[in-house]
């Protein structure tokens, strides 16, 4: 069973979303309910804590891309502590230029 746990913390106009588990075709639906145009209204800084994410499928990628596109209009988005394996996949598809990654 794939599972995705999502925790949100809001500090004014900053939203920190911590994810753990797998972001695949099924769990990405839950993911897209948490970060989308509606939920990101008024947010100027979106931080995605991904250190406990074990897998991201293309469905998950789509949600991230959409979030990036939204935040490009109203602020910044940072993906933190993505595991090296997944980061490699992101690099493969040229996301390194498109998104911002940070490691603590």
């Amino acid at each position: 069973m794939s599972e995705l746990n999502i925790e949100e913390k809001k500090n004014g106009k900053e939203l920190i979303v911590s994810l753990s588990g797998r972001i695949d075709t099924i769990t990405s639906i839950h993911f897209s309910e948490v970060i989308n145009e509606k939920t990101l209204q008024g947010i100027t800084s979106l931080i995605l804590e991904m250190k406990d994410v074990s897998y991201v499928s293309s469905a998950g990628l789509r949600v991230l891309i959409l979030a990036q596109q939204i935040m490009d209009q109203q602020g910044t988005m940072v993906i933190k502590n993505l595991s090296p394996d997944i980061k490699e996949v992101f690099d493969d598809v040229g996301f390194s230029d498109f998104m911002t990654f940070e490691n603590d």
Partner: protein
Amino acid sequence: MKKKSESKTKRKYILIQYGINFLIIFAIMIGIITGLSYVGFSAQALTTECETAYSEAQEITETIEIIRNHEQLLKVWLEHPETLTSEYWQQNSDILDLIDQSDSDFDASMLSPEKEGTRAQLFYASLLFDNFTDSFNYAHDLEPASLDGPFLLAKIDEGQYQVCIDSSAKHLALGEIVAVVSSHEIQSSEDDDLSPAINNTVAIAEQNGETLAAVVYPIKSDEKIVGLVAITIEKNFIARTNFKLASTILSFMIIMAILLGIVLLLRLYHMIVKPLSKVQKGLENYTNDLDTIKLVSQMKSITSTNEIGILAKNIETMVKKIHSYTVETTALAAEKSKIESELSLASNIQSSRLPTNFPDSSIEKRVEIFASMAPAKEVGGDLYDFFFIDDDHLAFVIADVSGKGIPAALFMMEAKTIIKDKSSLGKSPAVILSEVNAQLLEHNKEKLFITTWLLIIELSTGIAVEANAGHEKPTLCHLDGKFELIKNKHSLALGLSKKITIKDNEWQLTPGDKIFVYTDGVTEATNENEELFGSERLIDTLNQVTDKNPKEIIEHVKSSIDEFVGTAPQFDDITMLVFTYNGPYNA
């Protein structure tokens, strides 16, 4: 086989149920009232009859008390019972002459005992007896049938009396001695017929161990009771009267109950059962024919203003609502079916745009191509394409629009056109895709993007140039080899950002090489346990058919996916493209 028994209750009718209820309640009420009245009347019955008897006895007593020395008279009768017959008077009627000769009222003591006194006395007694017997007999005939007597009782001793005149009645016989017990002592007796309500004008005579009720009037002489005039009451009279009265009341009440019951049931029917039945029948018909207008008019015809009237109004409202919902639903269903048929049409249009005229292997020797696209919904966002740029250059495209359904389908159709449009001779795939990216960005309010893989092969040399904008890794299988994933770096998908750096990759293909490309619908196909098909399983599956032609390979992968997925629904469009490079065939 026994059918599973439904609790099918037999239909009951309100009127019958209520009728039975009335019956039981009335029966109980009638029973109670009859019982009470029976007990109550015991007190009354005696009173009326006794009053009659009492006044009669009183009258008789008065006539006796007029006689002088009536006490003596009684004594004589008792001592000389032979005088208590009318024959004695007839036998001694000669004394009458003596009476005529006297001056004053005849009186027993007038005749001296010496001069035929005793005999005269006796005669007198007998004469009077005769008179009284007549009047007593006369009185007897006047009495109501329930009473017997009157009897003349002479006192012998305290509580003991002897019957002197019996007026041919039944209860007591001439000369019989009875014990008269006063009413005070009676109340403790066990005789149920007589005990309830006896007032003190009634005494009981005891005779042969049996008790007899009687109304007595005392005959007094000098304030002392010397005798009684008694009128007896038939023993069963009280019980009979009570019974008669009670049964009269009973019959009366039964008749009243029946009439009342009928009236109540009729009212019940008219006020409740009839309109309710109307509602019930109306609804029953409605469930069969769904005729709203008929039901509404039936409900309107119920004019009750009580709960039933309100029920009818509510049903009217409800059925009108049902009607409008039904109309709405029918309209929606029609719309839905229209949309479905349009989608189906769109699906046909879309699939007809993807090339299915794979080159005939008998004519085109250099390559063998096969492809298929299976959308998750009626229309999809995946595309494949192949076309000759010129006779020596063949282009292959596989792409995947973000999302599914109509938006992705429209974007897909546009992208396909642009890709083909930009693919002209001399441009490398990287250049072509950059141009496509720029054009897509010109108007992309919906923020859709498309992963794209483009390969152009120079058939004469086998040199293939490939560019990958965010798409799945392609697979390559050399002749007599195994399929392997080709892990080059990809650029960002098209339509996302102007800042895109697409790189060309160059491969040297040799005859027999097979290339299998796909969209993520293949690797991300999910089964019921939420497991993914995955690229490893894909490679394994491909390596089962390395020697087959493109069509066979695709069919094998397809059935493999179907088997893996089982009954889980298809999440994403599944698209595959395979071609085999057979080398340059010079015509």
